[in-house]
């Protein structure tokens, strides 16, 4: 009885083992960037952190050029002492050039197909040179984790709308939505969020500057944020509000008359006011001024979307959700540009800080 058991165990241990990936024997790619190389090739830049025993982190940057993205991976392996693994990928960056000319789907397909890549990874488009961005060291940190945290906290608590790998595919495959991705730049050794890249299918067609993110976020989703929003009250005074909670509502009741109303309601607390006395009247004025400012920006933005024929706000999907019967997206796309999209803002200031 004992011998067969031993035999079984040894067979198990000898041949049952699967290929392992011990944490310190692998290169975990945390960021990958794609740029256009020479002769129509794709240049792939991968960063893998090296965790040293003394607690410091160094980032190894691997740069390869190839015809298709799959080839790049095998080239990395030929350069590295340890095998590359993709399970900890946090961010994929595409150059603006690729996003505008070729579209990014070809390069993102592998991210979707590979079961080892998590859905929470970010996709981003870079305005500046990716090679330079990824070669920069951001303190004693793994570049991928650093950039991921940057985007993550900005979309959770800041003005960046929520995006991730899953979201991108959701919008890409959904006919009533168009995807958008954060646009990042490297300025003086620091990575900044420069705005949003708006995509049609998988090609970048427009961008929103960072200043417009607040307005876009109000139009796009319900959120609460710790960031502040400042408005100019004229006569040299400024007021800014923070602790913002925003609710968005798409009103489709007048759809038959070709009218869609987006209602935004923002609750906030005054953080800073440069004027003299913060009376009820002034608060009222701040509310009105903010409403006017955001509404103006929002309407402009919507107009731009309609002109470009993109729908990052998901109005197509919203219209579908109230339309009985089979929804004809082609017909909707023609109609989209003619629809009168209204935007109404309501700002409510709930507190004015701890002083009167």
């Amino acid at each position, binding site marked *: 009885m004992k011998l067969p058991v031993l035999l079984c*165990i040894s067979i*198990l*241990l000898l041949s*049952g*083992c*699967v290929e*392992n*990936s*011990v*944490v*310190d024997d*692998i290169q*975990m790619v945390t960021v990958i960037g794609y740029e256009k190389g020479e002769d129509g090739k794709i240049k792939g830049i991968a960063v893998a*952190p090296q*965790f*040293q*025993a*003394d*607690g410091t*982190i160094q980032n190894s940057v691997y740069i390869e050029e190839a015809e298709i993205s799959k080839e790049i991976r095998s080239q990395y392996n030929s350069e590295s002492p340890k095998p590359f*693994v993709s*399970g*900890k990928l*946090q961010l994929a960056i595409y150059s603006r050039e690729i996003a505008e000319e070729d579209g990014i789907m070809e390069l993102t397909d592998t991210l979707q197909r590979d079961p*080892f890549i*998590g859905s929470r990874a970010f996709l981003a488009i870079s305005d500046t040179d990716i090679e330079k961005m990824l070669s920069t060291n951001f303190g004693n940190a*793994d570049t991928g*984790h650093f950039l*991921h945290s940057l985007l993550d906290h900005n979309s959770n608590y800041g003005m960046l709308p929520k995006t991730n790998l899953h979201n991108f595919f959701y919008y890409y495959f959904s006919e009533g939505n168009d995807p958008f991705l954060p646009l990042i730049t490297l300025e003086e050794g620091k990575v900044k969020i420069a705005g949003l890249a708006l995509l049609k299918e998988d090609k970048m067609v427009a961008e929103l500057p960072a200043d417009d993110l607040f307005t876009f976020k109000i139009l796009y989703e319900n959120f609460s944020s710790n960031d502040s929003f400042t408005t100019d009250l004229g006569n040299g005074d400024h007021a800014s509000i923070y602790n913002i909670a925003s609710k968005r509502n798409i009103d489709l009741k007048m759809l038959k008359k070709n009218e869609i109303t987006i209602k935004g309601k923002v609750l906030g607390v005054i953080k800073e006011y440069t004027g003299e006395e913060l009376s009820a009247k002034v608060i009222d004025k701040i509310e009105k001024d903010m409403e006017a400012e955001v509404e103006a920006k929002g309407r402009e933005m919507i107009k731009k979307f309609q002109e470009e024929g993109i729908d990052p706000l998901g109005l197509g999907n919203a219209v579908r959700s109230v339309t009985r019967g089979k929804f004809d997206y082609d017909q909707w796309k023609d109609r989209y540009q003619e629809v009168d999209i209204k935007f109404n803002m309501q700002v409510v200031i709930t507190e004015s800080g701890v002083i009167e």
Partner: protein
Amino acid sequence: MICVFQWLRKRQKPDQIKNLPQLIANLKTSGDFLHFKSEQTGMPYFIYYFKTLVNEQELSEKILAPMVKNKVSSLKEVKDTVPIPGIILTDDLSDICEKVMIGYLILRFNENSNECALIPSPTDISRKVSQPEVEFTVVGSKESFVESLDKNLHLIRKRLPVHELKAYEITIGKLTHTKVAVLYLDGITNQENIQIVKDRLKGIHVDQVVDNSVIMQLITDNKNSPFPQLVDTERPDRAASVLCEGKIVILSEGSPQALLGPTTFIEFFSAFEDYFVNWIIASTARLIRIFAVLFSILVTPLYVATLTYHYELIPSDLLSTLVSSRQQIPLPPILEAIFLELSIELLREAGARLPTKVGQTIGIVGGIVIGTASVEAGLTSNVLLIIVALAALASFTTPVYRMGNTIRLIRFPFLLFAHLWGLLGVVLCFCFLLIHLLRLKSLGKPFLEPIYPLRVKDLKDALIRLPNKFQTKRPIQLQTESTVRFEKDKNEFHE
């Protein structure tokens, strides 16, 4: 039962011994067998006994003195004059042989006849009732069982002064003749359970039974299981308490441990102290112990699985800590883990074998010196060192010592499976464990009860201990003849 005795008698009587003189001649070959002839009374009489078994002070004061005083001249007179109960007049050789070995002395008048008187006068050399060491509790009784069956029985009878408490006695062990007592409460304990225990005890045919643990191994349901299927305790109060629940207690001569059964898996994680403290504290303690067991079994295998296969699972913030701690270690996680687990086992084993004071030193020296040194030498990562030490600590929280050993043992197959298939391996091994536990029985009753078969009513005193007012019924598992322990309404303060 009777046939076993006859069988034993047949065995112990050497064929060549036909009469008492021959028997005595045989016994005389032992140096501590004393014999003398006395003529102080009218008739000369002969006394034979083992001086190591007989209380000689009692012999002179209670036996010889009255005999001299009353001038005894026949066996019948001996029985009337000697103030010791239980004197037997017999000529049965096997009876004589048996009794003389347990502290009776032989008295006879006629050197050639088989007729003699057997007078019980055993010495009792055993340790005094002392404090429990394994199951010490801060509050509660400080008595523990000793190596004498009679004293142990006394300790229980003292706590349960009712006539329903029955002690069924049986002698097992061809050479050791160990007296074993099966205790139960008549009218409460399930008859079928008692019968199972009796049958199994009767089925034991070994030469020596030196301890209750031997009995436990011999009557346990599944002998190939690392899990103990009967609880052992050194606390008479615990034994008395489970008797009231309807369980069976097995005591044996020479063993300071009582066996309790039928039991359940969960019972191994309930300390008797749980009943001395408030139910909230007791329940918390039990939950912590259950968690400690799971932690102890699973944490090292999970470490091995995650670090060998599932780097994706590690949160990014933790990743740098883990990777940098492993950076200079040449061994794969499995060897690293086995190395550390084995060192802990070595420390424990060495500590258990050595005298207490040396043992403590070994523990400290081993723990601190070896641990620190192996991290510095780059043999193990400090993260794993912490994990293994915590796992070992957690395994010691199990109140029943035997179960603690089992818990530490079953970690090793988990480690192997974790190395083989990562998390999947851990789950598969867990399935093996689960099926094994499902198949186990304690005296024919399911071992995993009340979880499976799910008996919600029995959960009142399993994973948690509910307050007294919920404890009115005896556990369903024991299928007691009377199910009600007490009536809730009569306890005014339970409102």
